[in-house]
């Protein structure tokens, strides 16, 4: 690992002051991704500002019956929090589908949003990569791209965002609260992560001198009819080839409201309101679900090794919506797909 300086931030204002004073500084919280990338020489911060002691570790109910999750709440604490387990089980399930117990104990809520792609070319400093070295080219487009994106890709980058938690958060209409030198602002979750376009080096719309302080969930948690299904090469502790977050509000077998998001297929958690509109007012059956899947995947484009993801995603969407409709969510322990 390279030399770097280490400081601690005492307050949020202090953290913003410190990050603004040094353009080569980075925040560190859980460190599970950043330390790894520093060992790989992909990240080379001159200074790490330790924000892990800031008072951002509580989960509180909001005035409009939602929840405000502090940015430093560890992933495991969030997944097992009684209010998350009861009211937002799809979020709990998505968190538990990701990483390992040890990593979930370390990783923070805010850091989960900011983790970087696991594209092997991004990690390999001897390969061209526009995300790591803008303008150097994309090695994945004509390379080993089995795990890569099928939606929202660009000529510059076909990397995926690796998070499971974020797939549930975008489906639940979460809001990201951030603070910067000019004050606080709120970012709708769907607008937080970016598509690669010509600037794949920018994963999110967070400015470099801003800090995530909280994630807010609205009241509606779709607890009765939801599921998170993750398809991967191993049954545990592997990144998604395709994952699906599906949530329904039902009246009998009529869909009153629907939420549908995909992981493992794009540079950001993929949600498209037109696919949800396809479900609204319809009855819960496989043909309805297939129509919604076709809308969600209408612009999907495969590369040499990942075209299978399009059919896999279609099947997974239908299966996850079926699980949600039946009120039997996918278990993250028993790996049998219901």
């Amino acid at each position, binding site marked *: 690992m390279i*030399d770097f300086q280490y400081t601690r931030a005492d307050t949020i204002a202090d953290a913003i002051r410190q990050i603004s004073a040094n353009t080569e500084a980075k925040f560190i919280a859980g*460190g599970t991704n950043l330390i*790894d990338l*520093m060992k790989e*020489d992909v990240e080379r911060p001159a200074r790490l500002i330790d924000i892990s002691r800031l008072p951002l570790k509580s989960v509180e109910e909001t005035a409009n019956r939602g929840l405000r999750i502090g940015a430093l709440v560890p992933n495991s604490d969030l997944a097992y929090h009684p209010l998350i387990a009861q009211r937002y089980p799809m979020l709990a399930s998505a968190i538990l589908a990701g990483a390992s*117990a*040890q*990593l979930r104990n370390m990783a923070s809520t805010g850091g989960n949003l900011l983790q970087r792609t696991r594209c092997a070319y991004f990690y390999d400093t001897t390969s061209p990569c526009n995300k790591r070295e803008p303008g150097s080219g994309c090695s994945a487009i004509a390379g080993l791209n089995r795990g890569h994106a099928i939606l929202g890709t660009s000529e510059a980058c076909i990397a995926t965002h690796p998070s499971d938690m974020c797939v549930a958060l975008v489906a639940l209409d979460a809001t990201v609260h951030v603070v910067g030198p000019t004050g606080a602002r709120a970012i709708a979750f769907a607008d937080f992560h970016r598509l690669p376009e010509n600037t794949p080096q920018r994963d999110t719309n967070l400015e470099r001198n801003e800090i995530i302080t909280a994630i807010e969930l609205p009241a509606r948690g779709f607890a009765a009819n939801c599921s998170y299904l993750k398809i991967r090469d191993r049954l545990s502790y592997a990144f998604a080839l395709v994952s699906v977050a599906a949530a329904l509000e039902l009246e009998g077998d009529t869909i009153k409201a629907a939420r549908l998001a995909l992981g493992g297929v794009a540079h950001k958690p993929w949600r498209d309101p037109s696919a949800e509109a396809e479900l609204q007012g319809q009855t819960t059956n496989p043909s309805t679900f297939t129509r919604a899947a076709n809308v969600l995947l209408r612009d999907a484009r495969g590369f040499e090794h990942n075209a299978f993801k399009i059919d896999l995603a279609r099947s997974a969407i239908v299966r996850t919506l079926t699980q949600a409709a039946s009120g039997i969510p996918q278990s*993250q*322990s028993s790996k049998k797909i219901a």
Partner: protein
Amino acid sequence: MTRASTAQQSNSVIPAPAKITVSLTINGVATQLSIAPWATLLDVLRDQIDLTGTKKGCDHGQCGACTVLVDGRRINSCLTLAVMKDGAHVTTIEGLATDGALHPLQQAFIDHDAFQCGYCTSGQICSAAGLIAEGKAKSPDEIRELMSGNICRCGAYPNIVQAIQQAMGQS
């Protein structure tokens, strides 16, 4: 080339960071250490304190051999900067036995022959101690899922699950 020259340039501008004094309670013993910012908890345990029971496997958080308990929670010590844990209580495999008696998990791993080469074992046992403290795993499926951060390349998994079940029955 660009990266190398940038690095050289930064090295000439930025002085080598000073070591930082950190207090850690390791296996019940309070210790003050002078630590470089980039030193992982794993390297500090092994190289500065000579507690070599904690193993370095992949050094990237993928294998679990480096698992220790920090303030009672299992973590990957290879992805933890020691300076960030100032004031913490760390328990390693060397700290599990009490008064010369093996920890129930250590005894259970022997009883069930839950290892072959043994390299992953200290991580497996510390992880299992964390698992039992968390109280979320009851069935073998749940044990397997919540132990998936610990790889055993000898493939002793069925015996590891049995050993953990035995220790859970005693806790």
